[in-house]
């Protein structure tokens, strides 16, 4: 197989990966940075993010305010020292993106505009129309072209980490176009591979969001943290799950049920007036809004559409001008996929899985417990989101911690010692992936994959019960066994075999899904996005104010244990939204 | 990496309507060029004296020449139309909408042509 050397390998070329690669290259013009991605960088799922990126900007805002919003938004499961670092570094990173050409939307005087977002007390979300992720990604990708030290491996699929003696030694890749294996020898690897939302059936995610990096780390002993916390975005098109950005609500849109009633007022987010108002009604946090939908569904107050139950997201009162200027992408999508003209009709929406709060555990320097392995972005659990992520904290997370991961990895690479070759390990690993191509018996990929997604949707959904979660765990164990017995591919070619890659992705997804389901079963309380209906409906700080860690246990079920949460300035208290307040001035 | 390159043949433009109209636009230039040569010939004959010029005029009245001129007229009109239609694409954004630029050009052509006709016939 082809063997190459690099100082730092970044796996994943979305926002976090590109930022990490740029940070590593900027620090040292002689550093060899390999940027590996299974798709072209501009196809990464960062491109679909819409709403914006938060950073304390206005004079009437403060780091404490952003800190408090984030910690309470996370239902106090956040590591507060990390959140303090995070909020202090958001604004500089947003300015950096602006310097690199990101077309942030502006006020008339030419300064950057900010808008309200769910769970945020003050307008601090920078936005580029409703295509913020698209613009951030393209800005980062195009800027990365300035750095000749970054060598890109476009459409190379990372199938394994090569780890020897507890230290990372490199990555094993499949060159997708040819099916040939490539081993990149490196002592520092940054995982920036995104979330795992595709383990559920209805989700906003791209086909690439299959938890690959989480699976890679997990297989080599790095634990997955807080996996039970999956975010359902409350406003997505039924059926496809296509995202209708929170920014709609940031601009003043409302949610009504089949009776035209703004139902959120029944769920602790009211009163209705004055509207709009920070952290109230439709500007509440995502977990609360998705949970409200579930209750409306139980009460029979949702609207039936051919693609399933929905409520109405009404933008009409915003007016055509504002809609076309601030929300053009979702207007187009509503028209294309649902035939809805947002100026004249409300959009049918329902919750869909959107974001993975959990991931590979890292400290504030993006270090995982595995020496030389770093992680940033949605694939990591650095400690800022806790049990529920606030919208617009993720697009800024990827650049804040993307930079940290790149710098940390580069520092480590400079101090690493050269040791003997591990090519034999790479060859052995390659053999196991090549074997997948040759199975003559087994089940269809789609069968196993769809059964997994249905099991997750049913057993580990917005509201959970012990029975449901146990059934899901049981099913996942069965699926993993069936997967081990064999997936039979139609496609036996080596060149550009996406069915083969799909089978490898399924392997990662099954392990990540199992970690998720077991973590959920073990958490006997309700907090943030993890809600139970089986006697554990309340938050239990006494027993569960701690992070869940899922460890791989060979072929058996994951071993669950716990890790304390770091509390500094903000003692856990009840989570309040809605209530009285002034009407917000929209910008 | 082994790839397959599909050849592009000389009939590429027959593949869809957009391409066919494009080639028709380009073809119109041929007829405009030919017409320009006829006018130049007229100018040359004018320089050679009144009989030469009258002979040129008589030649223009032949059936073959009339047929050519009808075709050329259609193509010149099509050419002018497409010329103005794509003109906004050659300019930076202007305070005037694109449609106004196209309309302005077309109206100017009609106005100038009308003026010539009126002078010639009147």
């Amino acid at each position, binding site marked *: 197989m082809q063997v190459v050397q690099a100082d730092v390998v970044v796996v994943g070329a979305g926002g976090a990966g590109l930022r990490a690669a740029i940070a590593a290259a900027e620090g040292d013009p002689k550093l060899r940075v390999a940027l590996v991605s299974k798709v072209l960088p501009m*196809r990464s799922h960062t491109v679909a993010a819409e709403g914006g990126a938060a950073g304390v900007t206005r004079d009437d805002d403060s780091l404490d305010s952003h800190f408090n919003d984030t910690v309470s938004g996370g239902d106090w499961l956040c590591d507060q020292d990390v959140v303090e670092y995070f909020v202090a570094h958001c604004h500089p990173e947003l300015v950096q993106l602006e310097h690199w050409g990101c077309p942030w939307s502006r006020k008339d005087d030419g300064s950057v505009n900010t808008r309200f977002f769910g769970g945020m007390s003050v307008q601090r979300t920078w936005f580029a129309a409703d295509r913020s992720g698209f613009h951030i990604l393209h800005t980062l990708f195009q800027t990365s072209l300035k750095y000749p030290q970054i060598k890109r491996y476009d459409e190379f699929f990372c199938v394994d980490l090569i780890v020897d003696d507890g230290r990372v030694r490199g990555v094993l890749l499949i060159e997708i176009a040819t099916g040939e294996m490539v081993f990149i020898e490196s002592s520092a690897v940054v995982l920036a591979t995104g979330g795992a939302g595709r383990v559920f059936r209805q989700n906003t995610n*791209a086909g690439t969001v299959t938890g690959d990096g989480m699976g890679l780390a997990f297989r080599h002993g790095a634990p997955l943290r807080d996996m039970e916390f999956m975010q359902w975005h409350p406003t997505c098109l039924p059926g496809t799950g*296509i995202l209708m950005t929170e920014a709609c609500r940031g601009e003043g849109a409302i949610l009504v049920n089949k009776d035209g009633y703004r139902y959120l007022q029944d769920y602790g987010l009211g009163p209705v007036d004055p509207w709009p108002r920070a952290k109230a009604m439709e500007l509440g946090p995502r977990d609360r809004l998705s949970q409200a939908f579930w209750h409306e569904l139980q009460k029979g107050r949702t609207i039936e559409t051919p693609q399933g139950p929905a409520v109405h997201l009404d933008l009409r009162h915003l007016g055509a001008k504002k809609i076309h200027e601030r929300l053009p992408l979702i207007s187009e999508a509503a028209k294309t996929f649902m035939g809805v003209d947002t100026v004249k009709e409300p959009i049918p929406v329902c919750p869909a899985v959107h974001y993975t709060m959990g991931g590979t555990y890292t400290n504030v320097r993006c270090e995982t417990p595995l020496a030389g392995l770093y992680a940033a972005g949605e694939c990591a659990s650095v400690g800022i989101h806790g049990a529920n992520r606030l919208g617009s904290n993720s697009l800024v997370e990827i650049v804040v911690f993307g930079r940290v991961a790149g710098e940390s990895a580069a520092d480590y690479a400079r101090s690493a010692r050269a040791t003997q070759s591990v090519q034999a390990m790479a060859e052995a690993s390659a053999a196991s992936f090549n074997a997948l191509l040759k199975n003559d018996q087994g089940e*269809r990929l789609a069968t196993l994959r769809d059964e997994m997604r249905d099991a997750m949707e049913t057993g580990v959904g917005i509201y959970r019960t012990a029975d449901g979660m146990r059934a899901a765990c049981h099913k996942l164990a069965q699926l993993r066994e069936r997967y081990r017995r064999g997936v039979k591919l139609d496609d036996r*070619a080596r060149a550009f075999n996406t069915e083969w890659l799909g089978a490898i992705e399924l392997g990662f997804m099954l392990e990540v899904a199992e970690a998720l389901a077991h973590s959920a079963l073990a958490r006997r309380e309700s907090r943030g996005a993890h809600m139970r209906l089986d006697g554990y409906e309340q938050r239990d700080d006494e027993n569960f104010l701690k992070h869940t860690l899922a460890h791989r246990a060979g072929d058996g079920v994951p071993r669950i244990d716990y890790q304390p949460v770091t509390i500094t300035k903000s003692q856990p208290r009840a989570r309040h939204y809605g209530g009285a307040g002034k009407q917000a001035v929209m910008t | 990496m082994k790839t397959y390159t599909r050849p592009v043949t000389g009939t590429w433009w027959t593949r869809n309507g957009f391409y066919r109209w494009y080639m028709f636009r380009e073809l119109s230039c041929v007829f405009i060029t030919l017409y320009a040569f006829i006018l130049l010939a007229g100018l040359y004959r004018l320089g050679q004296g009144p009989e030469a010029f009258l002979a040129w005029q008589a030649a223009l009245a032949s059936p073959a020449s009339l047929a050519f001129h009808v075709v050329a007229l259609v193509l010149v009109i099509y050419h002018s139309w497409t010329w103005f239609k794509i003109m906004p694409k050659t300019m930076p954004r202007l305070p005037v909408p694109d449609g106004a630029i196209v309309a302005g050009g077309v109206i100017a052509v009609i106005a100038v042509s009308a003026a010539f006709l009126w002078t010639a016939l009147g």
Partner: protein
Amino acid sequence: MRSIVLECLRYDPETDAAPRWQNYDVPFTDDMSVLQGLQYIKDHLDGSLTFRWSCRMAICGSCGAMLNGEPRLGCENFLRDYYPGPLRVEPLNHFPIVRDLAIDQSDFLAKLESVKPYIIGEPPKGPYRQTPRQMEEYYQYSQCINCLLCYAACPQYGLNEKFTGPAALALLHRYNADSRDQGKRERMPVINQEDGVWGCTLVGYCSEVCPKGVDPARAVNQNKIESAKDYFFRFFRR
């Protein structure tokens, strides 16, 4: 349930000397996109059918293909609009085929890199000031999702693969027109070369097929004036 036949152009570099057709009968509901039709084939009929896709919402640019001879995105075009069919599905024109509907994108990536698509110049301490009016000058050109439909549309690119092409030149213009950038001088050689803007004969099909309204034809052709100015005034530059 209705069904439609998809005629797909297949090519396996390991076993095929040339591309061949294969037909699939796809049952569909009214809300199914062409991409979902291809996914149905891959999941249930023939797992070897190979195509790129990702976001499913026309923002990642992965799923471009020729649908009945027109360059389109599979995710935002619907099977119901091609009924009764058959629907001919081929890889994007003017690119070498790697496998089935997956084309070789490397030439485009090289062109993208060649236009220096990044802000050139020293930034101020805080954010630049840029009014909404200034942003309008370049914003539409920043909408490009790199889907390559314009390259599949452009006959000049089809006849001459050295032509820089619509999307790359539109991106070049996006940076030149951005008030924060000072790299116009550095990018002129790309504009001025024979395969730069002068390779374009304003067919205009690129702007017609662009799913994002970027209007690359305009980006390219405005720069012909810039190029001419640059040529004629070169003696006055010091």
